[in-house]
């Protein structure tokens, strides 16, 4: 089949089974957009900013488990993809980014809209290709998808000069990849499993510390198997949220900076810490040298470089988590069947801590409390297939604490990079991947304006999402840090002032705008928004003074959490 390079890109996407791509056209990618106009089975969702396209592709990938595809032109189109690429790199999201490049003859001449995007993205991609011959397109595309989704998932970039999109080739899509240097682990070492199984089964105070790798590795059923086989408590990171049903009796919350105190005490006093697709991030560990000081560490990961990167592993298990957890469950069950008891006393102790140190806030005062907002949202969505996405900041942490996630791929947040503005486009991408699910973006007012233009896409491309705006009129998390660690000097965090009018803005984008000023208005508004099959922004004005607790101040030991304190009321003396 004699076709041009642009058609070859589309035929490759089709051969990979890609159903949707997110992008914006521009000069250097025009031949490929022209090929789209001539016909393809791949749906194209037109974003309004390439960053939006990238986060949509991420949201799609996270919601479906398939590879997300973003497409942009050279220069600014490509640099606008850098943030989503970095985000996907940090959170191990499989992403193929296709960028146009200036003509081969112009590369290196500072041509119009030229930038060295393979150079710029080198530290934040698994691999990248600058296609130098049209004949390479099929094999490069095949390799790109293969690398993005095998081993530890992550982003790749394919940069295609315009003349190469226009040149012709005899197209045939390869059946296999030729990547002699790319050999992600496929097996699990049986001796390591035996050792791990023994230590876990015999532990008096074990904790399963579950990260996003469990979801990426499609190992959630096996995790449930392991936890139930051993009667083992599960604590899940923000990225792992949903890997384990959060209403399950063995679920014990989330670790780290804003995790509940009971979860952090359990993590830090356990005797065997089983890290599963998790990477000892500083937001989880707090001061590393003081983290889980007495614990033997069993670390399971697909990426050998994560083992002993930050915390030395006593028992490293490298390999696909699906296989590893399944084998480990069998192993632990063997010990239980042989009479090694489950850690019942330990579970009761964590239960006690949970009772002693619950998540707390005061619902006093005139303002709607963000925590109450989350509880209401949780109550209204508990039984449905709802995908939550979030921005980054206080609202994100409240969402983590209060929105219980029962299924994998139903909570999508920017963890590692902490990208404000992630929520709205990620929600749109998730909706594109799972149109039958209700998609709710819990966003902050600071985050909202970073990517709000994508609401256009939500409306016009019929990808309705509900944006629950946790509007406190501040860059809330920064404000909280200024209040707690900078003597209350508030520096450039005030977003109040009534501009923009989010209700009108929602309407201007063709969506529905709602305003919630008081608690009693909240539930009806949420009910209505969730029932509508339209893009809705609910501007919820919440208490601007509310801080997110508990909190481990950055660099402190996790055990030294700052807790919520009831406001002390001054007794009136007569």
């Amino acid at each position, binding site marked *: 089949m004699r076709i041009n390079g642009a058609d070859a890109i589309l035929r490759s996407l089709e051969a990979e089974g890609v159903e949707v791509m997110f992008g914006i056209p521009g000069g250097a990618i025009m031949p490929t957009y022209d090929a789209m106009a001539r016909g393809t089975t791949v749906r194209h969702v037109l974003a309004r900013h390439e960053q939006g396209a990238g986060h949509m592709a991420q949201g799609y990938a996270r919601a479906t488990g398939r590879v997300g595809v973003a497409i942009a032109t050279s220069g600014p189109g490509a640099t606008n993809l850098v943030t989503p690429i970095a985000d996907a790199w940090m959170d191990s999201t499989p992403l193929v980014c296709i960028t146009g490049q200036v003509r081969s003859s112009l590369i290196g001449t500072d041509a119009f809209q030229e930038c060295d995007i393979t150079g710029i993205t*080198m*530290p934040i991609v698994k*691999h990248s290709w600058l296609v*130098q011959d049209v004949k390479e397109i099929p094999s490069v595309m095949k390799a790109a998808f293969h690398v993005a989704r095998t081993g530890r998932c992550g982003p790749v970039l394919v940069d295609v000069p315009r003349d190469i999109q226009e040149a012709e080739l005899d197209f045939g899509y390869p059946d296999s990849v030729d990547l002699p*240097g790319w050999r992600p*682990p496929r097996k699990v070492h049986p001796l390591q499993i035996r050792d791990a199984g023994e230590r876990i089964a015999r532990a008096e105070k074990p904790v399963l510390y579950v990260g996003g790798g469990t979801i990426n590795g499609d190992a959630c059923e096996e995790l449930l198997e392991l936890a139930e086989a051993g009667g083992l408590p599960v604590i899940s990171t923000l990225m792992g949220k949903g890997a384990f049903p959060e209403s399950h009796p063995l679920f014990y919350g989330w670790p780290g900076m804003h995790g509940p105190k009971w979860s952090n005490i359990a993590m830090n006093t356990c005797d065997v810490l089983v890290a599963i697709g998790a990477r000892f991030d500083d937001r989880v560990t707090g001061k590393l040298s003081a983290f889980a000081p007495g614990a033997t560490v069993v670390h399971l990961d697909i990426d*050998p*470089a994560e083992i002993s990167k930050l915390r030395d592993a006593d028992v490293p298990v*490298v*390999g696909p988590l699906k296989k590893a957890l399944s084998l480990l469950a069998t192993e632990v069950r063997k010990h239980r069947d042989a009479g090694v008891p489950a850690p019942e006393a330990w579970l009761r102790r964590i239960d006690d801590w949970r009772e002693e140190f619950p998540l707390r806030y005061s619902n006093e005062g005139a303002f709607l409390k963000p925590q109450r907002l989350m509880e209401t949202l949780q109550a209204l969505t508990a039984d449905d297939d709802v995908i939550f996405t979030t921005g980054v900041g206080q609202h994100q942490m409240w969402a983590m604490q209060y929105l219980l996630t029962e299924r994998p791929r139903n909570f999508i947040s920017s963890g590692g990079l902490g990208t404000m503005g992630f929520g709205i486009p990620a929600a749109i991408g998730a909706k594109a991947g799972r149109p039958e699910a209700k998609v709710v973006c819990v966003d902050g007012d600071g985050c909202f304006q970073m990517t709000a233009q994508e609401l256009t896409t939500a409306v016009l491309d019929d990808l309705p999402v509900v944006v629950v705006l946790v509007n406190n009129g501040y860059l809330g998390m920064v404000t909280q840090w200024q209040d707690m660690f900078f003597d209350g000097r508030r520096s450039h965090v005030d977003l109040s002032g009534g501009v923009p009018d989010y209700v009108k803005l929602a309407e201007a984008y063709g969506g529905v705008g709602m305003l919630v000023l008081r608690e009693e208005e909240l539930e009806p508004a949420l009910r209505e928004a969730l029932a509508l099959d339209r893009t809705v922004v609910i501007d919820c004005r919440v208490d601007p003074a509310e801080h997110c607790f508990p909190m481990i101040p950055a660099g402190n030991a996790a055990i030294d959490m700052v807790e919520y304190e009831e406001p002390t009321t001054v007794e009136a003396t007569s």
Partner: protein
Amino acid sequence: MKHTISVLVEDKPGALARIATMFARRGFNIDSLAVGPTERSGVSCITLRVDAEHHSLEQIEKQIHKLVNVLRVTELAPDEAVERELLLLRVSASPERRAELISTSEAFKGRVVDLGADSVTFELTGTPEELDAFQELARPHGIQELIRTGRVGIARASAKKARRLSAIN
């Protein structure tokens, strides 16, 4: 502690840049670096000299190994490898002092590769330590220009096997 790491890479655009970027990004320092072809067409060898504790060395190796173009990473243990480096050095030498310099270089199996009115250029191959020694002896004469390739190494036949650093799986 210093270590020599030998990395076999596919001869693809950007392969060296990816390794260099990884070192920069992860905060590892490279003391010396040499790149050249190997017995296999399309495969190059990058020899890196790094100063790292064992823990960092393991991280370096694992991170290099994750790069898609990297085929093999081995550490060349000093007692199990032959390491060599090439030095080119132009040193000030009046005609009456040439003989002394040349005889010094002969002790190091060096060769004169160029002569100027007031200078001699030597070529020397040896262990990096030998080159250091010659360099020090030449220094009092006035070194005009000096260039070294950075070390390359090969495992000895007697070495048990090329020692792969990745201890895990």
